[in-house]
C-alpha cells in the first residue's frame, strides 16, 4: 500500500528516531511511504489556540496535496494526526466549511482519502506480513503500551481505537512476540510541553506514568508519539534524582520494536540516540549482539 507520508516538524528533530525507524521498517512490510511534497506545519498546539479557521486551513493544505496525488496521508505524530483528523471531520460535516477552507488554501479538498495514523497503517496492512518476516521474536520482553491522550481522542473523529482501553500498540507488541503488560496509565496525559516549560506541573505527570509502568513490571514503554516519547525519555534522569532511585525504562517507538524483530540494525532504527540507554535491554534479552551495543550507549 502506498501512502503520502507526512513527517511533520518533530520527525526531523526530537523525533528523528521515529522517522528513521518508520522509513526503515515500512518497505519490509509492503508499505510505501512517499514523503508529501511541499508540506507545511500542521499548526498543532498553537494555531488552534489562536484561530479556528487557521487551525483547519493549515492541515487542509497538506491533505489537499495528498488528495491531488490520490493518496491517503500516513501521519506518525499524534498531534499532527489529531489536527488533520479534525480538519477532515470539519470538511466532511459542513459544505460551508469546505468552501471556506478551499478558498483559503486555494485548491480543492473534498476529504476523499481518509487520514490515517502510522499506527493504523501498520495494524491494517502489515500484521500478516510481519508474522512471516520476523527473524528475532522479542520473546520475554515485558512492554507497556503507552498511547497518550490523542491517539484515540476525541471520539468524535478518532475512531480507530477505544479511548479508555486502547489496543493497537498492544496488538503490535504481541505480534513481535513480546508480552504487553496490563497497566493503568496507557492513556494518562504526559504533560505535553509542560515537563519542559513548567516542570513543577509537568514533572509529576511524567513521574506517575513511569512509576506505574515500573510497578506493573514493564521493562520498557512503547509509544507512537514524538511528544510522549520526548517527555518519557528525557525526564527520567531528573525524576530519578528527585526520588533518589534512578529510573531505567527505555522508551521505544513501535516502529523501532518492529525493526528489531525484523533484524534491522539498531543504529538504522536510531536506537542509539535515546536519552535512556535503549540498547542495553535489547542486548540483555539477546535480541541484538553485544558488539553493536558498544557503539553508543544512550545520551543520558
Amino acid at each position: 500500500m502506498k501512502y503520502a507520508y507526512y513527517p511533520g516538524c518533530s520527525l526531523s528533530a526530537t523525533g528523528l528516531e521515529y522517522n528513521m525507524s518508520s522509513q526503515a521498517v515500512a518497505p519490509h512490510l509492503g508499505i510505501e511511504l512517499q514523503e508529501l511534497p511541499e508540506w507545511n506545519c500542521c499548526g498543532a498546539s498553537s494555531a488552534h489556540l489562536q484561530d479556528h479557521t487557521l487551525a483547519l486551513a493549515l492541515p487542509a493544505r497538506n491533505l489537499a496535496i495528498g488528495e491531488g496525488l490520490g493518496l491517503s496521508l500516513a501521519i506518525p505524530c499524534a498531534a499532527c494526526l489529531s489536527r488533520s483528523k479534525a480538519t477532515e471531520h470539519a470538511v466532511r460535516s459542513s459544505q460551508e466549511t469546505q468552501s471556506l477552507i478551499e478558498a483559503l488554501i486555494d485548491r480543492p479538498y473534498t476529504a476523499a482519502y481518509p487520514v490515517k495514523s502510522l499506527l493504523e497503517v501498520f495494524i491494517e496492512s502489515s500484521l500478516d506480513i510481519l508474522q512471516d518476516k520476523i527473524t528475532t521474536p522479542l520473546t520475554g520482553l515485558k512492554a507497556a503500551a503507552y498511547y497518550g491522550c490523542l491517539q484515540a481522542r476525541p471520539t468524535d473523529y478518532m475512531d480507530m481505537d477505544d479511548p479508555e482501553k486502547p489496543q493497537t500498540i498492544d496488538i503490535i507488541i504481541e505480534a513481535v512476540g513480546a508480552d504487553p503488560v496490563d497497566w493503568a496509565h496507557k492513556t494518562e496525559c504526559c504533560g505535553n510541553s509542560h515537563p519542559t516549560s513548567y516542570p513543577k506541573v509537568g514533572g509529576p505527570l511524567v513521574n506517575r506514568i513511569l512509576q506505574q509502568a515500573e510497578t506493573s513490571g514493564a521493562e520498557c514503554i512503547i509509544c507512537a508519539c514524538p511528544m510522549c516519547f520526548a517527555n518519557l525519555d528525557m525526564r527520567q534522569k531528573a525524576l530519578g534524582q528527585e526520588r533518589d532511585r534512578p529510573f531505567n525504562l527505555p522508551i521505544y517507538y513501535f516502529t523501532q520494536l518492529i525493526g528489531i524483530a525484523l533484524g534491522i540494525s539498531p543504529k538504522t532504527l536510531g536506537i542509539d540516540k535515546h536519552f535512556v540507554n535503549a540498547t542495553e535491554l535489547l542486548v540483555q534479552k539477546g535480541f541484538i549482539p553485544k558488539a553493536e551495543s558498544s557503539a553508543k550507549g544512550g545520551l543520558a
Partner: protein
Amino acid sequence: MKKVGVFVCHCGTNISQTVNCEHLAEVAKDMPGVVFSTEYKYMCSDPGQTMIKKAIEEHNLDRVVVAACSPRMHEATFRKCLSGTDLNPYLLEIANIREQCSWVHSDKNKATAKAEDLISMSVAKALKNESLTPSVIPIHKRALVIGGGIAGIQAALDIADTGYQVDLLEREPSIGGKMAQIDKTFPTMDCSACILTPKMVDASQHPNITIIASSEVEKVEGYVGNFDVTIRRKATCVDPIKCTGCGLCSQKCPAKTDSEFECGMSKRPAIYSPFPQAIPNIPIIDQTACRYFQTGKCKICQRICTADAINFEDQDELVTIRYGAIVVATGYALYDHRDKYGEYGYGQYTDVITGLDFERLVNASGPTMGKIKRPSDGQEPKTVVFIKCVGSRDATKGHEYCSRACCMYTAKHATMVRDKIKDSQAIVFYMDIRTPGKNYEEFYLRAVEEYGVTYVRGRVSRIYMENGKLIIQGEDTILGTQVIVEADMVVLATAMEAQPDATEFARKLGITFDQNNFFNEAHPKLRPVETFAAGIYLAGACQGPKDIPDTVAQAGAAAAKVVALLSKDEMTTEPIIADVNINRCSGCGFCVPVCPYKAISLKTLTERVHGSVAWGPTGREVTRQVAEVNKGLCQGCGACTVNCRASALDLLGFTNEQILAEVDAL
C-alpha cells in the same frame, strides 16, 4: 336556513394581546350563516358558558363556533355546555386562535387576519356539522395488572379492595420486583422486606386477587372494557397445585448457577425459588441450568418430591382471559455501565459494584449475611467511594434524564457504610444533590452532619488499580483541584432505564413510549396515569424513573381510574369514528390492513337489485362484500378514510364534505 353563533374568547390577555377580539366579533357577523356573534374575556368560565346558552335560546342558534384555545383544552367543556341546551354537542366547532395563532405570532394585524380566516373556516364547517350520538359498550368487570413489583401489588390490592377481580401477572417466579431486593428504604430507613412482604402476603391471600407468576403477555386484542389478553404461562416443570413449597428439591439439586436475586454474588440451584419469602412459594426449574435438561440425566428433584409435583414434560400454555381494564406496572431495568464506562474499568474490577449489588451486600439475608464485604476477597472495605449519575444526566454515554432516586439511595448507602463499618470513610462524588421529597433533604443532611459522609462535587474521570487498591481519580469543582482517592470498594449509582423489551411490549398493547422508551402518559400533568389507549393505565417506573413513595402513589391513582371504569356497567364511546357508506363500498378491503386498531373487517351482504332473468324471480340477488367498522375498537384516527378509493369511508365529525367546506372558506 342554519343559524350560526360565533363566540370569541380573549383568554384573559392570552389571545387578546395579539389578536383584536372585538374586531373578530364584528367581522364574524358578516360571515355566511352567522346570525349572532360576541366576545368575552373568559368564554370557558361560568358566565361565558351562560352567555352561550342564553344566545342559543334567544337567537335560535343551531350551530355554535367558539374561537378560543385548542380543542384539546376545552372542546369537552363547550360540548358539555351545549348538552345543557337543545343542541347536540357535536354541532359545536372550535376555532383554535390561541395555540395556533396568538401564542405563535407577534404582529397583531397579521394575527387578527389569520384568526379571521380560522373563524370563517370553522363557520363553514359548522354549517355542515351533523348531530352525532355516542354508542355504548359493555364493561367486563375484571382487571389485569401486568408486573408484580410494588407498583403492581399496590394497584392490585387497591382495585381488589373495592370488590373487583384482579389478575396480577408476573414474569418472574415470584412477585416482589426490585423492592424485594432492596435492604432499607429512605428516608425512614425501615426495612424494605418488612413493609413489602406483608403486602405480598395480602395480595396472595386476597379473595379477589389471582397471582399468575412465571407468565407473560402474549397478545392483546379488543378494546376498553373488553380486552382479550392471551397469557403465556411458561413451563415451570413444577405443578403449583401439588407442590407444598417444602424446598427439599432446591436443597438437593446438584446444579448451581448465579442467583439473579443476589445480583450474581451467590449461587442458586436450577430448581429454585428466588428468595425465601417468595410468593407464590413454588419453585420452578430453570431449564438452562438444569442437569436433566442439559444432559438428559439427573431427575433427583423428581425422585425426592413427596408431592409428585415435578413434571419434566411441562409445556408453555396459552390462555385467553377477558378484562375490562389493564394496569401496566412493568417497572424498570438498571443501566449496564460495563459496556459504556471504560473509565470505570468496563466492569473488569470486581469491587466496582452497582447500588443494587450494594443492597444485597448490606441485606441480612444477602450473600454476606448483611456484613459489608467486598466481592473480590471478602474483606471489609474501609474506604468506600460512591459515584452518582452513572448513565443518568450523561447524554454521551447514557441517558439525558435524571433517575431521581439515586441521590437519596446513595445517601442511604453512605450512611450504612459509616454506621456498619468502624473507622470507615464514605466519599460521594456528585454533580448536584437532588432531594425534592418529604424529609429527603433532612435525610441527606443527616448523612453529612451526623454520619460524617464526605461529599465531593465533581465527576470521577477514572478508576484504576494500583497495589490492590482502587484509585479513584476525579475533580473537586468547588475547590478547583484534582482529587485522587484510594478506595477498597466503589459503588456506582447506575441509571434507571426502560425495560429492554419495553417498545415491543408497548406495541403489543397499543400504547406509546417516549424517546427513552418509557411509556407515555396521556398528559404530563393532568392525566398522569392514563395512556392514549382507553382502559390502559400506568403505574410505577415503567412511565419514568420513580422512587417507592411516588410509585405507590401512582399505583393508587391508576387503581382509582380502573375502579371508576369498572364501576360502570357500560360506557359511552366517542361518536367520532369511521362510517361506511355501503352503497359506495366496493369491498376491496384496502382499509382492513390500514387500521391500526384492527377495527375494520369485511362482511358479506346479500341484497336484491332490480333487473331479472326469465327463469328466476323478479329482482336479482347479489352477494357482495363491504367494510364494517367495530365501534368499540375504532379510535377515529381517519387512516382508513384517506385510503378508501371509493370515498365510501368517512370520519364522522370530519367528513370529506366538512373538511372541504373549510378549505373552500379559506
